[in-house]
């Protein structure tokens, strides 16, 4: 019986071995999420998805530059982060890394004649610590043709010229973040509504 008792003690010891510290509880973390809603030609919802973003290095630098007096001039309001661009990059899942730049994002989109970027002229900041771009509605006119597939999203700066659709992320500045979504195909009459939410709130600060 002592042997059984000792074995049970060993089981107890294994049970209470701590794992690594839970980084979600120990670290203050902001996050961004993209939501896509695919609608048919009659406006009926066919598919919806909410997925996390990756804020790339140029986006992190932008945040720091704008918030702190570091010798880098602040950007004008009309050029702030307010745009959503879509991509048809078939390798976007792999290419969405910390080091992805606006130029690389544009180079891989494969959209030639369509204007793949839309601008939100009034980003919603009514909820403390959050910014919401959209919902912005993309149609087949933002791609080259019906039947093409959106593979991901880029969050970019707005243009100071006007609020119309535009062709590349890099023309206005940097890539702030990317969102890797399920590939959705846009057929004639169908639309994709895209919303981006950036949340910097934290209960412990």
């Amino acid at each position, binding site marked *: 019986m002592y042997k059984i008792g000792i074995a*049970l003690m060993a089981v107890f010891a294994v*049970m209470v071995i701590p*794992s690594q510290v839970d980084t*979600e509880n120990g670290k203050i973390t902001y996050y961004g999420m993209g939501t896509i809603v695919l609608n048919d030609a009659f406006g009926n*919802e066919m598919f*919806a998805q*909410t997925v996390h973003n990756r804020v790339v290095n140029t986006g992190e630098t932008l945040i720091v530059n704008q918030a702190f007096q570091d010798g880098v001039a602040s950007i004008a309001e009309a050029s702030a982060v307010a745009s959503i661009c879509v991509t048809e990059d078939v390798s976007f899942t792999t290419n969405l890394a910390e080091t992805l730049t606006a130029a690389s994002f544009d180079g891989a989109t494969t959209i030639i004649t369509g204007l793949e970027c839309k601008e939100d002229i009034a980003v919603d900041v009514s909820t403390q610590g959050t910014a919401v771009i959209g919902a912005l509605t993309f149609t087949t006119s933002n791609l080259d043709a019906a039947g093409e597939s959106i593979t991901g999203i880029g969050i970019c700066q707005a243009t100071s010229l006007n609020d119309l659709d535009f062709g590349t992320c890099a023309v206005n500045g940097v890539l702030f973040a990317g969102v890797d979504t*399920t590939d959705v195909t846009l057929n004639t009459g169908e639309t994709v509504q895209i919303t981006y939410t950036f*949340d910097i709130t934290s209960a412990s600060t």
Partner: protein
Amino acid sequence: MCNNMKKQAQIIFLAVSICLVIFGFIYSLNSETLFGKLLDQVKPIDWDKIFPRNIIKNSIPIEILENQNGMCNIKAENFQLILKAPEFTKSQDLAHELNYDNDTKTIKIPCDKLPGDKLSGEKDNLHVWIVRGDSEKFSGRYQYFVTPSNVTISNAIPPQ
């Protein structure tokens, strides 16, 4: 008499050991332990313990085709879009669990998991929430649930 005392001591030691194992099990359920991480793969998902950025939410409209002895045959035209969600490592598990037929675009769900009257022609929303592999809690797990069609991805809450 000595033998009795010895036996008594063994029984007490065994009893204490069993109590410690039970305590260890309960402790692991709610604490960050290696054993707790194993339990995360089998116990019900507590969505409140997962950081929002580690949850991928999906929803599609579905329509009940027929109720066959408590198992509902359902039209799920865009179910493939859920299976192709990023980082959904267990997509084939879900497809198997719901008996997905890619030719007919149908799935099968126990009718008691559906809201409403569960009649043919009724339209609802199928939601699938996925926990990213990077999550400290319930890594890689998923849960599906069905709501009335007026419940969207932004206000859906999985049942407890």
